[in-house]
């Protein structure tokens, strides 16, 4: 094994591009995935029955088939109905719709975890429905939702590698191509692994930071001086242990 070659791959333009594509696909798909999940979660509470039937159909389709199948389907089958997307957007659409199905469940349970009395207390103060959702329900649901949502986000970083089957030049495809061109599987895949680990670590830390930002008591303790290097190290360690724990796919 050549350490120099690993470093060379790590700093090469093609690997950097691959990592960038992986990060971009992940972030864009997460954005639309959370959006889809939020819409589905709210739609599930609509009284009009056909809307609820549609959400059930959506969840059934996207949770009942492999995400790899969905990616290939959107890229290869939809064009025969004259619906065309390039490889990047096919990947993003499939990942977003799939993610939406899982996020919906997480967001729904988060909204439901806020007890009815909290809403009633807001009503009794004369607050509007929207105000109650924004200032009472959502901040409390966010604290419940964030840990599983963070897991989904880290999961997405890894799942995004599946788009390499439709020739999106993501990190995995770049590594694989480089490896087979140079016959240096070990070095190329090690370089890709390092990128993946780096990205997931950043996600975990971001998740930990968001969790404590949403925890008013933690915030207060931190303001009172819990800031030293040991405290920071402890927080990162706990965020690694708790984040990305159980990913189903």
């Amino acid at each position, binding site marked *: 094994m050549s350490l120099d070659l690993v470093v060379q791959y790590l700093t090469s333009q093609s690997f950097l591009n691959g990592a960038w594509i992986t990060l971009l696909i992940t972030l864009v798909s997460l954005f639309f995935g959370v959006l889809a999940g939020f819409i589905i979660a709210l739609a599930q509470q609509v009284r009009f029955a056909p809307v609820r039937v549609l959400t059930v159909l959506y969840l059934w389709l996207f949770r009942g088939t492999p995400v790899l199948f969905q990616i290939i389907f959107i890229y290869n089958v939809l064009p025969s109905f004259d619906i065309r997307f390039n490889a990047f957007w096919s990947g993003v659409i499939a990942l977003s719709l799939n993610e939406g199905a899982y996020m919906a469940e997480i967001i729904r349970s988060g909204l439901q975890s806020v007890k009815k*009395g*909290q809403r*009633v*207390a*807001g*009503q*009794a*103060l*004369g*607050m*509007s429905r929207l*105000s109650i959702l924004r*200032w*009472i329900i959502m*901040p*409390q649901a966010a*604290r419940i939702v964030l840990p599983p949502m963070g897991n989904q986000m880290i999961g997405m970083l890894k799942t995004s590698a599946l788009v390499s089957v439709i020739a999106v030049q993501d990190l995995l495809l770049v590594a694989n191509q480089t490896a087979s061109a140079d016959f240096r599987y070990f070095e190329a895949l090690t370089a890709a692994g390092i990128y993946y680990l780096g990205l997931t670590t950043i996600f975990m830390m971001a998740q930990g930071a968001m969790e404590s930002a949403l925890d*008013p*008591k933690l915030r*207060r303790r931190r303001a009172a001086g819990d800031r030293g290097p040991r405290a920071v190290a402890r927080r990162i360690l706990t965020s690694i242990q708790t984040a990305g724990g159980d990913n189903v796919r």
Partner: protein
Amino acid sequence: MSAEEKILELVDVYKTFDDLTVLKGCNLRVKKKETVVLIGPSGSGKSTLLRCINLLEPPSKGSVVFEGHEVSGDLRGADKLRRDIGMVFQNFELFQHLSAVENIMLAPMKVLGMSKADAHDLGLELLRKVHIPERADHFPDELSGGQQQRVAIARALAMRPKIMLYDEPTSALDPEMIREVLDVMTELSNEGMTTVCVTHEMGFARRAADRIVFMEDGCILEDAATEEFFGGRANERAQKFLSQILH
């Protein structure tokens, strides 16, 4: 009772849930600065009656008249009505993600558009009024039940309500904390806050109430001045209930 001094009136209020009729034609009048204590067996409809007043439960039939205006006809005005009616719950229902003072600040800021600084001042002033200024930055789960309920009272007062509704405010409290909550309520009542309170604390009723209303099975069976009620002149069912809760 002259029209000017009457602040609230329920006229022949019915409430039906699916096929269960919980309120069967209730009539109640509350004068300004008056304190009314509502008692009755569990399940008799006391909470429902209270929730009809601020339209958390719109009456199925009959009307709610607040300051001379019928308010139960059009529920679009309910948010506005509720600004003027403070409500305190058995389980406090403080917002768990906000500190004591933030709980008080939220509605004035989001409903009345008060500035953060003004709302904070108001919050601290009201915490002094309920005797816990030192707990301003504590979160609900760091407060005792009695303290939480006093913050909840302060939160309701922050909207400068014209009437306060309490639904069994002390029945979720340990005995040693009941007093501190009742003291605050008594002070408010003595200062002239119009009050309707569901409670079985008869000591509070004797001290603070002008009238006692007794409900059973969705009907108001007795509505008497406090001295009369405790002076043995209440109706038979009310007497029976009273002797049960006093022993």
